[in-house]
């Protein structure tokens, strides 16, 4: 109890409140700008934390972290362009809602879903971090491989329209991810002797191209410059409690999936939101309407990506092992504050940890408050004349693509992917599977090859009873794959006039 009181006195500091508000506003804006994203947002505030006390510094960083993940959904909903790859799955239902004139409501759903996911994972972090951390350690290369197999099954679920086209797009994404240096041997693959390609394609320019630039090209080709989609009222509208209650299962599942994926190093929020979306396609109450502007799709994606925040902090704080580049930067910030994340942190410094957890919950609440006051201004971009809006999107996307690695070539790569995305959209090929392939490809390959080295090349050893976690995940993956394939095929048969 003393602990809690000490921690409370640590956060009852005007600087903490200020850090939360400033951090949240900043995070939402940076997250919403296509191509910038959580890592950049946190790196930008890093120098300011040096001069701050421990708790305000933690508050600033956690606020930027949570709100930048949420911020990505705003552009996903408003202009069909995820601000960060984490929000790529939010596009699927978020933008159709905007087209239907319900942008304010869609943002409300995204905010509430992010809040639920964030708070859920924060609570898990508070009560179970050390235990879950030891679970994360048991999760080795082979287990990771099994998890990625399971994640890849979401390609089926996000393949709107044509399953075949979706699968091909997914395979295309996997192939793209093989360009560049081979982690195992250092060999550079498929660069066609162009030195600039020897680093492979970066995720951010690719996502910016496939979504943002292609969106601009599509709109240009539609030549609808006057009075288009934005009949949406600007502003922020809460979803009704009843509507929310009807989708509680998806919110809970999304939070669980996000927390779980967050705890396991190496996978990340983009994977979590796609997995959760895939699960919604399989089991949600309104699964038939998913992809046409059904809030449940936003709930699935946004609870999951924000639940990753608390989950990813588990190995970061309890083991000192950051699960992704975002938490790696956060860990740096903590070390600069003289806090060494690791096994001893929870035992040696419980007051500080409790304060950090309370701050994490407050950061999620700050996100809600800021969303209510800030998003009405952002949604006004929809009122802009379309040529102006498209010009702004082009400008921001160019900056975003450039800032990923600081090279002009990434801007060109991004534009090339924009053209590709445009062609694919015309051909009705879904784009999300490409992103899934690119995100999962490297870790799929890496974990497979690590596993093969460890088992001396025996693939069969991957699914033995000695590895119950991997075996379970593989069985679930096969099950999910079959279920989703059958689910996709069934309506087709009905359309064609067959009866079941």
């Amino acid at each position, binding site marked *: 109890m003393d602990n809690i009181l000490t921690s409370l006195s640590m956060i009852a500091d005007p600087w903490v409140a200020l850090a939360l508000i400033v951090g949240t506003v900043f995070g939402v804006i940076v997250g919403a700008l296509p191509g910038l994203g959580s*890592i950049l947002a946190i790196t930008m505030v*890093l120098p300011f934390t040096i001069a701050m006390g421990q708790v305000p510094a933690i508050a600033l960083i956690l606020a930027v972290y949570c709100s930048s993940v949420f911020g990505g959904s705003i552009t996903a909903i408003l202009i069909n362009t995820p601000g960060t790859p984490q929000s790529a799955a939010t596009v699927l239902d978020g933008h159709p809602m905007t087209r239907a004139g319900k942008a304010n409501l869609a943002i409300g759903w995204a905010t509430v879903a992010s809040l639920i996911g964030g708070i859920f994972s924060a609570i898990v972090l508070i009560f179970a971090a050390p235990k879950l951390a030891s679970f994360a*350690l048991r999760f080795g*290369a082979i287990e990771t491989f099994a998890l990625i197999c399971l994640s890849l099954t979401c390609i089926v679920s996000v393949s709107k329209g044509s399953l075949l086209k979706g699968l091909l797009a997914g395979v295309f994404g996997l192939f793209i991810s093989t360009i560049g*240096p081979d982690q195992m041997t*250092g060999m550079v693959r498929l660069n066609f002797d162009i030195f600039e390609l020897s680093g492979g394609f970066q995720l951010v320019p690719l996502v910016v191209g496939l979504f943002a630039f292609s969106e601009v090209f599509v709109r240009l080709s539609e030549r609808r410059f006057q009075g288009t989609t934005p009949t949406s009222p600007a502003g922020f509208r809460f979803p009704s409690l009843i509507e929310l209650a009807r989708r509680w299962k998806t919110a809970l599942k999304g939070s669980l999936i996000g927390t779980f994926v967050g705890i396991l190093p190496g996978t990340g929020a983009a994977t979590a939101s796609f997995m959760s979306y895939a699960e919604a396609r399989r089991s949600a109450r309104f699964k038939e309407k998913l992809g046409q502007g059904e809030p449940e799709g936003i709930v699935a994606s946004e609870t999951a990506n924000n639940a990753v925040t608390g989950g990813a902090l588990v190995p970061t704080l309890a083991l000192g092992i950051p699960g992704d580049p975002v938490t*790696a930067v956060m860990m740096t910030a903590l*070390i600069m504050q003289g806090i060494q994340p690791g096994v001893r942190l929870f035992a040696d410094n419980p007051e500080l940890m409790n304060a950090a957890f309370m701050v994490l919950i407050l950061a999620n609440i700050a996100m809600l408050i800021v969303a209510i006051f800030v998003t009405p201004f952002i949604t006004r971009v929809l009122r802009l004349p379309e040529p102006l809006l498209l010009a702004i999107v082009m400008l921001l996307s160019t900056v975003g693509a450039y800032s990923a690695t600081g090279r002009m070539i990434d801007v060109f790569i991004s534009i090339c992917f924009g053209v590709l995305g445009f062609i694919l959209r015309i051909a009705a090929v879904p784009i999300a599977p490409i992103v899934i392939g690119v995100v999962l490809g490297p870790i799929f390959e890496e974990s497979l090859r*690590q596993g093969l080295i460890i088992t001396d090349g025996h693939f069969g050893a991957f699914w033995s009873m000695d590895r119950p976690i991997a075996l379970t995940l593989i069985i679930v993956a096969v099950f999910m794959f079959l279920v989703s394939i059958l689910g996709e095929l069934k309506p087709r048969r009905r359309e064609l006039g067959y009866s079941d």
Partner: protein
Amino acid sequence: MKLSVKQMFSAVCLALVPGLALADYPEKPVTIIVPWSAGGATDLVARTVEPVLSEKLGADMVVSNVTGASGTIGAAEAARAKPDGYTIFFTPQGPVTIQPQLRNIPYSLDSFVAIGRVYSSPYMTMVVEDSEFATMEDLLAATKERPGEINYAFTGIGTLPHLALTATQQHVGVKLKQVPYKASAEAAKAVLGGESHVMTEQQQTAQQFEMRPLACWGAEPCSFYPDVPLVKEFGIESVVEVSVGFYAPAGTPEDVLAKLNAALEEAMKDPKLVEALEKIQISPAYLDSMAFDQRMRAEVENNRSLLGEVGLTQ
């Protein structure tokens, strides 16, 4: 206003002058290229040094992260930059002393001139606290007796831990089972989780994850672990230490280099910087331009023979 031919001629001359006016260096911001992402270990050091260096040099500095392909993309960018002192390069030695030997890359160590080293840290071979290997002898003997049973975690071909593994492999004469991981934290996770048995990393890693160091790869004993034996006591004649420092593109004028060298030397003596570096667990180890250059040239030679013997040089 109409310009006379004479005025126009003078204007053109003036525009050409900056090439001659280098005595005024620095007169605009200096870009520091860091070949790893923002927030990483190298970037963090660069951003800690930057304000102090900028003060000593009397110019604003901007850290620019040009990333990818084991640091070679950033290095190529720096090698290609105009050698006028307005672009300098901050990197550990991997991209300049190892990578150019592994594959075809549009630069080499000769594309740069050394400005000075900022810090150095020896690598250590380490195991978990309750590992079956009590000493380095145990580990080497077990590796020899039970080939293929001990998993060595490392961070990929062409990294410094890989050089240490190669040297170990030569010493024991048995092929080591090498499991590559993307980053040192992931290798540490694998060792803590029991998937791999031993790893070689910078000494901070041993501290951070409470691992038990078996041997130190430094020329001198490791500062955090002075009692841990050096690898040369076991007959391994290699030194593996990270050396992080500043370089300028080759061809940078002497007077500009002199200013950069002096600014770095002063910065490294500043207690403010020493304290800031210690806060992020970096022990400063300044070497001036000459000494740093010699050290890196010697490394290129050593690495060439080491990598050549395992057939990795191009």
